[in-house]
Protein backbone atom coordinates (compact mmCIF):
# COMPACT_ATOMS: atom_id res chain seq x y z
CA UNK A 1 0.00 0.00 0.00
CA UNK A 2 2.51 2.60 -1.17
CA UNK A 3 -0.48 4.76 -2.22
CA UNK A 4 -0.65 6.02 1.37
CA UNK A 5 2.85 7.53 1.09
CA UNK A 6 2.10 8.89 -2.37
CA UNK A 7 -1.10 10.54 -1.12
CA UNK A 8 0.88 12.04 1.74
CA UNK A 9 3.22 13.56 -0.86
CA UNK A 10 0.25 15.00 -2.78
CA UNK A 11 -1.24 16.52 0.37
CA UNK A 12 2.03 18.03 1.59
CA UNK A 13 2.70 19.69 -1.76
CA UNK A 14 -0.89 20.97 -2.03
CA UNK A 15 -1.09 22.33 1.51
CA UNK A 16 2.29 24.02 1.22
CA UNK A 17 1.31 25.75 -2.04
CA UNK A 18 -2.09 26.81 -0.67
CA UNK A 19 -0.59 28.25 2.51
CA UNK A 20 2.06 30.12 0.54
CA UNK A 21 -0.75 31.69 -1.51
CA UNK A 22 -2.63 32.63 1.68
CA UNK A 23 -5.61 30.38 0.91
CA UNK A 24 -7.85 29.05 3.70
CA UNK A 25 -8.94 25.86 2.06
CA UNK A 26 -8.37 23.54 -0.87
CA UNK A 27 -11.42 22.43 -2.83
CA UNK A 28 -9.80 20.36 -5.58
CA UNK A 29 -6.44 18.69 -6.28
CA UNK A 30 -5.61 17.56 -9.83
CA UNK A 31 -2.95 14.96 -10.50
CA UNK A 32 -1.73 12.94 -13.51
CA UNK A 33 -0.95 9.25 -13.19
CA UNK A 34 0.68 7.33 -16.05
CA UNK A 35 -0.79 3.93 -16.77
CA UNK A 36 2.67 2.36 -16.55
CA UNK A 37 3.01 3.26 -12.87
CA UNK A 38 2.04 0.87 -10.10
CA UNK A 39 -0.49 3.29 -8.65
CA UNK A 40 -4.14 2.33 -8.25
CA UNK A 41 -6.70 5.15 -8.23
CA UNK A 42 -9.02 3.36 -5.81
CA UNK A 43 -6.22 3.14 -3.25
CA UNK A 44 -5.30 6.80 -3.80
CA UNK A 45 -8.91 7.91 -3.19
CA UNK A 46 -9.13 5.67 -0.13
CA UNK A 47 -5.93 7.14 1.33
CA UNK A 48 -7.09 10.66 0.42
CA UNK A 49 -10.30 10.20 2.42
CA UNK A 50 -8.32 8.88 5.36
CA UNK A 51 -5.66 11.63 5.37
CA UNK A 52 -7.57 14.86 4.60
CA UNK A 53 -9.85 15.25 7.67
CA UNK A 54 -8.48 17.97 9.95
CA UNK A 55 -6.39 19.52 7.15
CA UNK A 56 -7.24 22.51 4.93
CA UNK A 57 -7.98 19.95 2.19
CA UNK A 58 -10.84 18.39 4.16
CA UNK A 59 -13.74 17.75 1.79
CA UNK A 60 -11.62 18.43 -1.32
CA UNK A 61 -11.96 16.36 -4.48
CA UNK A 62 -8.99 14.44 -5.88
CA UNK A 63 -9.19 14.49 -9.68
CA UNK A 64 -7.00 11.90 -11.40
CA UNK A 65 -6.06 12.19 -15.09
CA UNK A 66 -4.81 8.88 -16.44
CA UNK A 67 -2.04 9.18 -19.02
CA UNK A 68 -1.93 6.43 -21.66
CA UNK A 69 1.49 5.12 -22.72
CA UNK A 70 2.97 6.52 -25.94
CA UNK A 71 6.31 5.72 -27.56
CA UNK A 72 8.48 6.71 -30.52
CA UNK A 73 10.37 4.27 -32.73
CA UNK A 74 14.04 5.23 -33.10
CA UNK A 75 14.30 3.25 -36.35
CA UNK A 76 11.32 4.37 -38.46
CA UNK A 77 10.21 7.44 -36.49
CA UNK A 78 6.63 6.24 -35.88
CA UNK A 79 4.85 7.56 -32.78
CA UNK A 80 2.18 5.31 -31.37
CA UNK A 81 -0.08 4.65 -28.38
CA UNK A 82 0.23 1.24 -26.81
CA UNK A 83 -0.94 -0.80 -23.84
CA UNK A 84 0.95 -1.74 -20.68
CA UNK A 85 2.41 -4.86 -22.22
CA UNK A 86 3.69 -4.09 -25.69
CA UNK A 87 6.36 -1.50 -26.29
CA UNK A 88 7.55 -2.64 -29.73
CA UNK A 89 6.93 -0.56 -32.86
CA UNK A 90 3.69 -1.54 -34.63
CA UNK A 91 5.06 -0.27 -37.99
CA UNK A 92 8.42 -2.05 -38.22
CA UNK A 93 8.55 -4.38 -35.16
CA UNK A 94 11.65 -2.56 -33.87
CA UNK A 95 12.60 -2.95 -30.21
CA UNK A 96 14.62 0.26 -30.33
CA UNK A 97 11.93 2.57 -28.96
CA UNK A 98 11.69 5.47 -26.51
CA UNK A 99 8.82 5.97 -24.09
CA UNK A 100 7.32 9.46 -24.46
CA UNK A 101 4.66 9.31 -21.74
CA UNK A 102 2.98 6.88 -19.36
CA UNK A 103 5.18 6.99 -16.24
CA UNK A 104 3.83 10.31 -14.88
CA UNK A 105 3.22 10.74 -11.20
CA UNK A 106 2.63 14.47 -11.08
CA UNK A 107 0.62 17.02 -9.15
CA UNK A 108 -0.80 19.42 -11.75
CA UNK A 109 -2.77 22.12 -9.94
CA UNK A 110 -5.03 22.88 -7.01
CA UNK A 111 -8.20 24.91 -6.58
CA UNK A 112 -8.25 27.04 -3.44
CA UNK A 113 -10.76 29.25 -1.70
CA UNK A 114 -10.14 32.34 0.45
CA UNK A 115 -13.49 32.48 2.27
CA UNK A 116 -13.91 29.82 4.93
CA UNK A 117 -16.53 27.40 3.57
CA UNK A 118 -17.88 26.71 7.08
CA UNK A 119 -17.30 27.83 10.65
CA UNK A 120 -13.99 26.52 11.89
CA UNK A 121 -14.44 24.22 14.84
CA UNK A 122 -12.57 23.89 18.12
Amino acid at each position, binding site marked *: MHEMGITQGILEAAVEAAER*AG*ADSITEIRISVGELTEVVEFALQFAFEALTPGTIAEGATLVVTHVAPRSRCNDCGAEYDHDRFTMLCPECDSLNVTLLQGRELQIDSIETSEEPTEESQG
Partner: protein
Amino acid sequence: MATIDLSKPILDRNEKLAAENRARFDSAGVFVLDLMASPGAGKTSTILATIAALRDRYGIAVIEGDIASKVDAEKVKAHGIPAVQINTGGACHLESDMIQRAVDTLDLDALDLIIVENVGNLVCPTEFFLGEHAKVMILSVPEGHDKPYKYPGIFQISEAVILNKVDTLPVFDFDEDEFTSVVRSLNPTAPIFRIAATKGQGVDEWAGWLARRIEAVRTAAGKPPVGDAGAATGEEGPA
Protein backbone atom coordinates in the same frame (compact mmCIF):
# COMPACT_ATOMS: atom_id res chain seq x y z
CA MET B 1 -11.65 30.51 -5.97
CA ALA B 2 -8.13 30.49 -7.36
CA THR B 3 -6.18 27.97 -9.38
CA ILE B 4 -2.57 27.36 -8.41
CA ASP B 5 -0.41 25.63 -10.99
CA LEU B 6 2.10 23.22 -9.44
CA SER B 7 3.27 20.84 -12.20
CA LYS B 8 5.78 18.93 -10.14
CA PRO B 9 6.47 15.28 -9.32
CA ILE B 10 4.38 13.92 -6.46
CA LEU B 11 7.46 12.19 -5.08
CA ASP B 12 9.49 15.39 -5.40
CA ARG B 13 11.08 15.12 -1.96
CA ASN B 14 12.14 11.50 -2.46
CA GLU B 15 13.47 12.31 -5.93
CA LYS B 16 15.53 15.30 -4.72
CA LEU B 17 17.09 13.21 -1.95
CA ALA B 18 17.72 10.42 -4.45
CA ALA B 19 19.58 12.91 -6.66
CA GLU B 20 21.70 13.95 -3.65
CA ASN B 21 22.53 10.31 -2.91
CA ARG B 22 23.40 9.74 -6.53
CA ALA B 23 25.77 12.72 -6.66
CA ARG B 24 27.53 11.34 -3.59
CA PHE B 25 27.88 7.86 -5.17
CA ASP B 26 29.11 9.33 -8.46
CA SER B 27 31.82 11.45 -6.90
CA ALA B 28 33.00 8.52 -4.75
CA GLY B 29 32.92 6.22 -7.81
CA VAL B 30 30.63 3.71 -6.11
CA PHE B 31 28.10 1.81 -8.23
CA VAL B 32 24.78 1.29 -6.42
CA LEU B 33 22.42 -1.52 -7.39
CA ASP B 34 18.79 -1.69 -6.22
CA LEU B 35 17.86 -5.38 -6.23
CA MET B 36 14.11 -6.08 -6.20
CA ALA B 37 12.10 -9.33 -6.07
CA SER B 38 9.27 -11.02 -4.22
CA PRO B 39 9.88 -12.56 -0.79
CA GLY B 40 12.02 -15.67 -1.09
CA ALA B 41 12.95 -15.24 -4.78
CA GLY B 42 16.62 -15.38 -3.83
CA LYS B 43 17.75 -11.77 -3.30
CA THR B 44 20.10 -12.61 -0.42
CA SER B 45 21.38 -15.77 -2.16
CA THR B 46 22.07 -13.76 -5.34
CA ILE B 47 23.87 -11.09 -3.32
CA LEU B 48 26.09 -13.74 -1.69
CA ALA B 49 26.85 -15.32 -5.08
CA THR B 50 27.66 -11.87 -6.53
CA ILE B 51 29.96 -11.11 -3.60
CA ALA B 52 31.80 -14.41 -4.16
CA ALA B 53 32.31 -13.52 -7.83
CA LEU B 54 33.47 -9.92 -7.37
CA ARG B 55 34.99 -9.54 -3.89
CA ASP B 56 38.57 -10.09 -5.10
CA ARG B 57 38.29 -7.10 -7.40
CA TYR B 58 35.94 -4.68 -5.66
CA GLY B 59 35.10 -3.23 -2.26
CA ILE B 60 31.50 -4.29 -1.62
CA ALA B 61 28.88 -3.38 1.01
CA VAL B 62 25.23 -4.39 1.32
CA ILE B 63 22.19 -2.47 2.55
CA GLU B 64 19.42 -4.83 3.64
CA GLY B 65 15.84 -3.55 3.61
CA ASP B 66 13.27 -5.58 5.49
CA ILE B 67 10.03 -4.82 7.26
CA ALA B 68 11.58 -6.33 10.41
CA SER B 69 14.52 -8.49 11.60
CA LYS B 70 18.22 -8.40 10.82
CA VAL B 71 18.78 -11.97 9.62
CA ASP B 72 19.76 -10.98 6.07
CA ALA B 73 22.39 -8.47 7.26
CA GLU B 74 23.81 -11.14 9.59
CA LYS B 75 24.09 -13.60 6.67
CA VAL B 76 26.11 -11.05 4.67
CA LYS B 77 28.31 -10.03 7.63
CA ALA B 78 29.14 -13.72 8.20
CA HIS B 79 31.05 -13.48 4.88
CA GLY B 80 33.10 -10.53 6.13
CA ILE B 81 31.24 -7.94 4.07
CA PRO B 82 29.91 -4.74 5.69
CA ALA B 83 26.11 -4.80 5.88
CA VAL B 84 23.61 -2.27 7.19
CA GLN B 85 20.11 -3.39 8.09
CA ILE B 86 17.22 -1.00 7.52
CA ASN B 87 13.91 -1.97 9.12
CA THR B 88 11.09 -0.14 7.39
CA GLY B 89 8.67 -0.86 10.22
CA GLY B 90 5.85 -1.97 7.94
CA ALA B 91 6.62 0.09 4.82
CA CYS B 92 6.59 -2.00 1.65
CA HIS B 93 9.61 -0.35 -0.02
CA LEU B 94 12.78 1.64 0.70
CA GLU B 95 12.98 5.41 0.22
CA SER B 96 15.98 7.66 -0.38
CA ASP B 97 16.14 9.10 3.16
CA MET B 98 16.59 5.57 4.55
CA ILE B 99 19.44 4.98 2.08
CA GLN B 100 21.04 8.28 3.03
CA ARG B 101 21.13 7.30 6.72
CA ALA B 102 22.43 3.81 5.93
CA VAL B 103 25.19 5.18 3.67
CA ASP B 104 26.31 7.54 6.45
CA THR B 105 27.50 4.48 8.37
CA LEU B 106 29.61 3.16 5.44
CA ASP B 107 33.12 4.16 4.34
CA LEU B 108 32.47 5.10 0.70
CA ASP B 109 36.18 5.54 -0.06
CA ALA B 110 36.71 1.82 0.56
CA LEU B 111 33.85 0.78 -1.76
CA ASP B 112 33.14 0.22 -5.45
CA LEU B 113 29.76 -1.46 -5.17
CA ILE B 114 26.79 -1.17 -2.83
CA ILE B 115 24.00 -3.69 -3.31
CA VAL B 116 20.65 -2.68 -1.85
CA GLU B 117 18.29 -5.57 -1.10
CA ASN B 118 14.88 -3.92 -1.36
CA VAL B 119 11.86 -5.12 0.60
CA GLY B 120 10.37 -8.30 -0.90
CA ASN B 121 7.63 -6.90 -3.14
CA LEU B 122 6.98 -6.76 -6.92
CA VAL B 123 4.93 -3.57 -6.86
CA CYS B 124 5.89 -0.81 -4.46
CA PRO B 125 9.69 -0.44 -4.99
CA THR B 126 9.18 0.41 -8.68
CA GLU B 127 8.05 4.00 -8.01
CA PHE B 128 10.80 4.98 -5.59
CA PHE B 129 14.24 6.05 -6.72
CA LEU B 130 16.99 5.75 -4.13
CA GLY B 131 19.93 7.30 -5.97
CA GLU B 132 20.88 3.92 -7.47
CA HIS B 133 22.61 3.55 -10.86
CA ALA B 134 20.42 0.61 -11.83
CA LYS B 135 17.38 -1.28 -10.67
CA VAL B 136 17.54 -5.02 -11.35
CA MET B 137 14.85 -7.56 -10.56
CA ILE B 138 14.92 -11.25 -9.83
CA LEU B 139 12.14 -13.66 -10.71
CA SER B 140 12.52 -17.22 -9.46
CA VAL B 141 11.32 -20.22 -11.46
CA PRO B 142 8.76 -21.46 -8.87
CA GLU B 143 6.91 -18.12 -9.10
CA GLY B 144 5.84 -18.95 -12.66
CA HIS B 145 6.43 -17.54 -16.14
CA ASP B 146 3.21 -15.51 -16.08
CA LYS B 147 4.48 -12.93 -13.56
CA PRO B 148 5.38 -10.28 -16.19
CA TYR B 149 1.68 -10.18 -17.13
CA LYS B 150 0.70 -9.49 -13.54
CA TYR B 151 3.50 -7.12 -12.54
CA PRO B 152 4.58 -5.37 -15.76
CA GLY B 153 5.87 -2.25 -13.97
CA ILE B 154 8.84 -3.88 -12.27
CA PHE B 155 9.91 -5.63 -15.50
CA GLN B 156 9.82 -2.28 -17.32
CA ILE B 157 11.80 -0.29 -14.77
CA SER B 158 14.57 -2.91 -14.43
CA GLU B 159 17.78 -2.59 -16.45
CA ALA B 160 18.39 -6.32 -16.24
CA VAL B 161 16.24 -9.30 -15.27
CA ILE B 162 17.64 -12.27 -13.35
CA LEU B 163 15.83 -15.59 -13.62
CA ASN B 164 16.90 -17.44 -10.47
CA LYS B 165 16.53 -21.07 -9.33
CA VAL B 166 16.97 -22.41 -12.90
CA ASP B 167 18.11 -25.68 -11.27
CA THR B 168 14.42 -26.26 -10.46
CA LEU B 169 13.20 -25.92 -14.08
CA PRO B 170 12.72 -29.70 -14.43
CA VAL B 171 10.11 -29.78 -11.66
CA PHE B 172 8.07 -26.70 -12.63
CA ASP B 173 6.07 -26.06 -15.81
CA PHE B 174 7.92 -22.78 -16.37
CA ASP B 175 7.72 -21.81 -20.06
CA GLU B 176 11.04 -20.07 -20.70
CA ASP B 177 10.22 -19.11 -24.30
CA GLU B 178 7.03 -17.40 -23.26
CA PHE B 179 8.79 -15.69 -20.34
CA THR B 180 11.54 -14.37 -22.61
CA SER B 181 9.14 -13.08 -25.21
CA VAL B 182 6.94 -11.23 -22.69
CA VAL B 183 9.96 -9.67 -20.99
CA ARG B 184 11.24 -8.63 -24.45
CA SER B 185 7.99 -6.90 -25.33
CA LEU B 186 7.86 -5.13 -21.95
CA ASN B 187 11.50 -4.16 -21.90
CA PRO B 188 13.26 -4.61 -25.25
CA THR B 189 16.78 -3.85 -24.04
CA ALA B 190 17.10 -5.62 -20.67
CA PRO B 191 19.37 -8.68 -20.67
CA ILE B 192 17.97 -11.80 -18.97
CA PHE B 193 20.48 -13.72 -16.82
CA ARG B 194 19.61 -17.34 -15.98
CA ILE B 195 21.20 -18.30 -12.69
CA ALA B 196 21.01 -20.73 -9.78
CA ALA B 197 22.36 -18.52 -7.02
CA THR B 198 22.85 -21.23 -4.40
CA LYS B 199 24.69 -23.44 -6.95
CA GLY B 200 26.81 -20.63 -8.40
CA GLN B 201 25.43 -21.49 -11.84
CA GLY B 202 25.27 -18.69 -14.45
CA VAL B 203 26.66 -16.15 -11.99
CA ASP B 204 29.73 -15.27 -14.10
CA GLU B 205 27.75 -13.71 -16.92
CA TRP B 206 25.69 -11.63 -14.49
CA ALA B 207 28.81 -10.60 -12.56
CA GLY B 208 30.47 -9.60 -15.85
CA TRP B 209 27.59 -7.27 -16.70
CA LEU B 210 27.77 -5.76 -13.23
CA ALA B 211 31.57 -5.37 -13.41
CA ARG B 212 31.26 -3.38 -16.64
CA ARG B 213 28.74 -1.06 -14.98
CA ILE B 214 31.01 -0.69 -11.91
CA GLU B 215 33.98 0.15 -14.14
CA ALA B 216 32.01 2.88 -15.93
CA VAL B 217 31.20 4.59 -12.62
CA ARG B 218 34.77 4.16 -11.35
CA THR B 219 36.18 5.64 -14.56
CA ALA B 220 33.82 8.63 -14.44
CA ALA B 221 35.05 9.33 -10.89
CA GLY B 222 38.68 9.14 -12.00
CA LYS B 223 39.49 5.79 -10.36
CA PRO B 224 41.81 3.48 -12.35
CA PRO B 225 40.34 0.34 -13.97
CA VAL B 226 40.52 -2.87 -11.93
CA GLY B 227 41.83 -6.32 -12.89
CA ASP B 228 40.38 -8.14 -15.85
CA ALA B 229 37.21 -6.04 -16.18
CA GLY B 230 38.78 -4.37 -19.22
CA ALA B 231 39.47 -7.79 -20.69
CA ALA B 232 35.83 -8.76 -20.19
CA THR B 233 34.79 -5.86 -22.43
CA GLY B 234 37.57 -6.53 -24.95
CA GLU B 235 39.37 -3.32 -24.08
CA GLU B 236 42.78 -4.72 -23.28
CA GLY B 237 45.99 -2.92 -24.01
CA PRO B 238 48.32 -0.28 -22.66
CA ALA B 239 46.73 2.76 -21.10
